[in-house]
Every structure is written in C-alpha cells, then in structure tokens.
C-alpha cells in the first residue's frame, strides 16, 4: 500500500504543476486588471500598488517567483484584502467547507443507502418506484431552487431553522440537506443497482434458503458487494461536495471555500483565485486516492498493483 501512495504522490506533482501554470496564465491573460477603482487613481499610486504585488515585473519573472513561493507554501497576499494572505484566508474558510461537506455526505449516505436498499429489496413495487422518484428530485431539482424553497418552508414559515450563517446546529440543517440532496439521489440509484445485482446472486439464495433472517441477509451478506459502486462514487464526490458548493454557500451566506472562490473571481483577486484552484486540485487528488484505497480494500478482486 505504501508504494501505491508513493506512486500516486509522484504522479500528482506534474499534475499540480500543470494546474498551477495553466491557472497562472489564464488569470493574467484576461482583459482588465485587478485594481480598477471607482474613483480614478493617480499614476504614482498605481505604480506603488503594482510594485507591492510585483506586477511591475515581466511575466515570466512573476511566474517563477510564484512557483518558488508555492514550494515554500506561500500563496501570496490577497489582491482584494491587501493585509491578508491567501493561505490564511483559505485556512479560515476550509474548515467550514469541510464541515459542511462531510455533514452533507453523511446525510447523503444515510438517506441514499436507505432509499436504495429499500427499493432494491422490493424491485418494481410501489416502494421501488416511489423511492426512486423521490431520489429523482435530488437529481432534477437544482440546489438553487431547492434551497430557497426549503428556506421558505422551514426557516421562514415554520421558523425551525436559521436562514443563513454558519455557527450553530440550526444554521447547518438546511444547507446540509440542500447540498446533500443530489448526492443522496445518486447514491440511492447506485445503491439500488448494486444491491439488485448482488441480491440475484447464488450465495444470497443459499443464505435465504438456509433460513437466515432477511435483515441479516442484507446487512451481513449483500451490503458489502452491493455498495461497491457507491464507494467508487463517493470518493470523487466528496471532493466535489467539499469544494464545489458555490451555490449552497451563496444562498446560505456560508463563509466557505466555494464562496471565497466565486468572490475572488468576481473581484479579480488573482492570487486568491490561483490559491483556491490549486487547493481544490490538491483536495481532488487526495480524495481520489483515498477513494481508490478504500475500493481496493473492500473489493478483494482488486489489488494495489493496479495503482
């Protein structure tokens, strides 16, 4: 396993370099600069600011100093907030997104597996159709529709939960549900599919014939194989959940990474954009690797040598 991880890390490095380079030039090439202001700035001021951020140096010099900074772990100062560092702001925002993401994934697994198992044990029944149609809601209703609707019902009309913010349990419920819905839906479908396949296998029939109670059949024998595809889905999905929750963070005003990135894009905060993109890439790589490891551990047919 150790060599597997090592190989992954070694493969990851050129990937990250490519990502950093592409982002760097993409960001610089776009028209307009980061410092256009409402009231025009005298030229000395512009020069002074450019110097502070190193924008007066030729492009390739900026690139090299940025790359060197990367190795030291320094992502540079934010363009939008001149007295803060990008790494500092990411460090503040990431735990929020992490919490939100993990809670959403737990919710999705809980609901998704529940629905999927329920549907698969009585295929083509009313229960099956209704569970799957319910799951479809997660896939077909965009989070920016679902979000405002559940805010309206549960936060404003019923006043059970909070409208926005992130700090207490009441703040968390609605965003977690909104974010987790689509993943719950996909997990439900995958789970159902996987369980159906497994449940038609011979060894399940044998267990049933032997008189093993149904719930034990499911939990002890079927679940492990049936959920394989769920596991392979969850890995990359976690990266997506943690990092890509722009919409949910905007609707609920959650100070996480997604919102940080979107605001940076709109504010042309070059360093922040690059910092967040790089960070996301690292997260994606880490979670893909973790997911592969878990899959290999669960599925006896695969081994680490494939990595």
């Amino acid at each position, binding site marked *: 396993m150790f060599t597997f991880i090592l190989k992954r890390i070694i493969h990851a490095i050129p990937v990250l370099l490519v990502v950093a380079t592409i982002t760097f030039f993409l960001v610089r090439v776009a*028209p*307009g*600069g*980061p410092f*256009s*202001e*409402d*009231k*025009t*700035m*005298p030229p*000395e*001021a*512009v020069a*002074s*600011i450019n110097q*502070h951020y190193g924008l007066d140096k030729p492009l390739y010099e900026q690139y090299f100093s940025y790359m060197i900074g990367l190795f030291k772990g320094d992502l540079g*100062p934010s363009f*939008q*907030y*001149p*007295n*803060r560092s990008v790494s500092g*702001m990411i460090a*503040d*925002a990431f735990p929020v997104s992490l919490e939100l993401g993990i809670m959403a994934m737990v919710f999705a697994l809980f609901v998704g597996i529940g629905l999927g198992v329920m549907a698969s044990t009585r295929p083509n029944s009313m229960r099956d159709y209704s569970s799957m149609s319910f799951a479809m809601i997660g896939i077909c209703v965009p989070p920016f529709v679902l979000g405002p609707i559940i*805010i309206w019902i549960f*936060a*404003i009309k*019923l*006043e*059970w*939960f*909070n*409208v*926005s*913010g*992130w700090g*207490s*349990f*009441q703040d968390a*419920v609605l965003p977690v549900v909104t974010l987790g819905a689509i993943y719950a839906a996909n997990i439900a479908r995958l789970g159902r599919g996987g369980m159906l396949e497994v449940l038609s296998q011979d060894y399940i029939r044998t267990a049933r014939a032997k008189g093993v109670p149904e719930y034990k059949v499911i939990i002890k024998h079927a679940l492990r194989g049936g959920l394989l595809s769920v596991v392979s889905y969850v890995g990359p999905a976690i990266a997506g959940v943690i990092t890509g929750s722009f919409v949910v963070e*905007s*609707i*609920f*005003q959650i*100070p996480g990474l997604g*919102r*940080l990135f979107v*605001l940076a894009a*709109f*504010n*042309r905060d070059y360093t922040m954009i690059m910092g967040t993109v790089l960070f996301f890439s690292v997260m994606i790589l880490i979670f893909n690797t973790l997911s592969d490891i878990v899959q290999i551990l669960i599925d006896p047919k695969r081994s680490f040598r494939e990595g």
Partner: protein
Amino acid sequence: MISILVLSGCSRKESNLKNATSKGILYVGNGSEPQDLDPSTVTGVPEQRVIAALFEGLLSENPKTLAPEGAVAESWTVTHDGLIYTFKIRKEAKWSNGDPLTADDFVYAYNRILSPKLGSQNAYMLYCMKNAEKFNKGQLADFSKVGVKAIDKSTLQITLGKPTPYFLPLITHMAWFPANKKNIEKYGAIDQRGTQWTLPGKLVGNGPFVLKDWEVNKVITVVKNPQYWDADKVKLNEIDFFPISDNQAEERTFRAGQLHMTYTVPSSKIGYYQKNKPSYIHISPYLGTYYMVFNVNKEPFISPLVRRALSLAIDRKSLAEDVVKGGKVPAESFTPPDTGGYTAKTNLQYDVKFARECLAKAGFPDGKGFPVVEFMYNTSERNRQIAEALQAMWQTNLNIKVELVNKEWKMYLDTFRTRDFSIATASWIGDYNDPLTFLGMWTSDSTNNRAKWSNNEYDKLMADAAFTSEQPLRFDLFQEAEKLLMEQAPIIPLYYYTSMALISPQLKGWYPNTLDHHPYKYMSLEDEK
C-alpha cells in the same frame, strides 16, 4: 427525531434578537465584505460604516440634520476671508490605547493621505487645503508648505487655497480623520499600502468603538471604547457587522429575527413591508443620482441631438415607479433637489414626438441607419431590469436597437479607462452636501468625468462658481451650468436615489438623513413591549 429538532428550533428562535438586545449588542447587515479599515485609503460604503464606529474627526454630523458639530474639536474660529480655520482640540480626546490625541495626529494623517505613494483615491477631498494638490501630485516635496499646522498640542490650523463654503461639512468625511503615527509606523512606512495595522488587536482608533474581531466573510465585531471622550453617552455595548451581499438573503435574515438593521431593501419586498409592517421600513431621500453616461467621442453620440433624443424617449416616471420602486423620484436634473439648499430648475420631459424630431434632425429619421450600439451595465439585478426596460423603450419609441452588455464591477470600471463603450449605466453618491460634488464632475479636467465631455462654457461657469461664496450668485451659476448640462446631455439622469432600510422596533436613535449616515453613538436597544 423530528420533535427534538422542533424543540431545539423553538427555544433558539425567540432568544436570538432578544438576547442580543438585552446584552446591548447591535446586529447590522452591512452589504459586501469590507476590503480594509484604513480611513485614508478605502472608498467603499460598507467600509465607511465600520470606520465610522472606530474613528472620529474634528467635526461630526448631527444625526438628524447632518449639521457639523464639535467632535474631537470642541470649538473653532475662521478668519474673515474664509481662508484660515483654527480648531481647539478637547483635552479629553484620546486614542483607544490611552495615547492623548493631539493636533500632530491630524498633521500626520494629512501628510499620509496626501503622500503620492500611498495612492489614496480620496486625496482629492483635501485639495481645498493650500498646496495639498501640488504635494499629492508630486510637484511639491516639502509637506511643511502644505496649509496645515499644529500650533500647539491642542490647536490645529488649516489654511485653504481658496474660500470653500462647504468646508465644515466636508471635514466630517473620513478622509479628514486623524491617524496615530506610532501605531501605523509599527507596521510599515507612512505611505505604505496593505500593512497589518488595521487588523484586530492592532488597530488603534479614536471612535466610540474599538475593533475586537474580524472574521472575513463572517462578521466584524466592535466593542465599546472606554477611552472615548464621550463614552458616557454611548449606550451600545457591541456591534456585529454581517457582510451579507445578497439583499434578498439579508432581508430573509432580518425577517427571521437575526438582524436589527439593514441598509438596503430588495425592491420586490418594498410593497410587502409597506403594507404589513410599515414601521419597519424607512425610505428617505438620498444624495445620489442614477444616470446614463455617453461616450461623447464615439459615434453616434458625438451629436448632442442624438443624446437628447434618447433622453426624451425615456419614460422616467414609469421607470422609477414600475421598475425600480422604493419611492425613487424621476430625475429632472443631475443634482438631487435640496442639495445643500440648492434645487435645480431644469426639467426632463418624456416627449416621444420631440425625441423623434431630434433623431431625424441628427440624420436618423425613424431610426434608419442608426448603428446597433452597446449598452453596458455592471452586474446587478436592478441594473439589468433598468437596462432591459430602456432597451425596450428606445426600440418602441425611436426604432433603434441597443445590445445589452453586462460586465462585472472591475471590468466595468476598467472600460471607462479603455473607452470601449457607447452608453453605460452609472450612479453617483454625493461626498458632501453641496451641489459642487455633483456638478463639479463634468468639467474638462475632472477625473470623474466618464463621458470625457469638454465644454468651455461649462468649465467657465464652474470655475467662476468655485471662487464665489456669495449667494445667490453661486447658486445662479450652478443653475446655468445645470441647464447647459441637461441641454448638451453628455449624461442622462434617470432618478434620484432613496435610501431604504429595515429597522427593528427594538432599535432607537436611528434617524433618516440624505447622506444615509447613522452614527452608532446615538443608538440604543430596547426590548419590545
């Protein structure tokens, strides 16, 4: 499981705002996240609102009338010619770290904001001071020649380059706030940008509150400053500023009982509050104008006839009442009514027939041959609705086509520099309560002249007005200028702003005024009966 959720929900709900009120903590919805808290470099309104709690200048504004009142300065005199002002600084004035506040703190602050390297965009607000402009433009190296002097520790003298009738209201602006030299230079040079001195734990201010915490995109917390000279009068213990940029989300947050006050109201909710909770919503005139600006050096807008035609073809009344809502008043001039006592006499008609005649005279009868022009607006719901409405009006009334181009803020601003636009939306909020802040924008040398319009007669009128403090001559000159501005139409005013706010009945000491300045010093929280 559901019952647990319900129970926990209920118990938390009613305590939220009540809890804050009983502790004297004010919850404010503050729009976008402040970039920085340095009074000498920031330009945004959300920043200004927080800075107003942390710092104070020589004079402050009366919360109801905006008349300048003594703050750090307890008294002042002015010479007969209106050129030399002398301020007496009160002995009790202190910085939040205990340092006494002296006249040198003002001299230092002005030196700082006028330093060319600092690049402050509000430096021009000090140009009335003798030699300030020269120093700021790098034409003068010796700051001691600039018209500000500390006669002694508690006496500050400011010498102006020319008589400035609006000087006293002007210096309540944050560009004129003092600065603590020791504190700032601990973290960098006098004219260095982006230093750490404005972070919590480091920032030293002289206002009624002091900075306790600043979690980006989450909340800014300020607490009562015991060193403030008037601390006895301050009733709030703490203020939490929440950066909620989406005004729909902010309104929901207010309605759910998580905010005491907001500075905006989404237009779709105005009707709801006016009907159901009229005591919560406050709409007041605001010193600002929403307008369209032409690039007068680009065809087809070189001709004033064409510009006037487009202006005449706009139904401002419908725009203000049906599209924008919120009691906005259709504009008749560029300067809002009753600005420092001045109300323009011009008016802007909705006259489609005349508009078509103008367009025909300009060479485009019935819109024939009129090129498709780009109409730029910066990304916002309101701008989009206005842009779409105007697009339809011009199509229907003049038979011309405009193409809507939506640009995000920075790109939008940059386009004024590159001049790659034909028409654009714009708005201007007055810096101080005098028509000069509006009319002065359109002289040939003004950096705020986005149309790049240049008219000798206008320049002369404005130059004459600048040297007069005699009334009614001064205002008469402004009237002439305004008339010329509306006839030549390098810009088309659409409506005057109103400020809108949602205020919880638990908040007392909040008063409406035309600059939408609400000093926290006078506010207090009371439980609802």
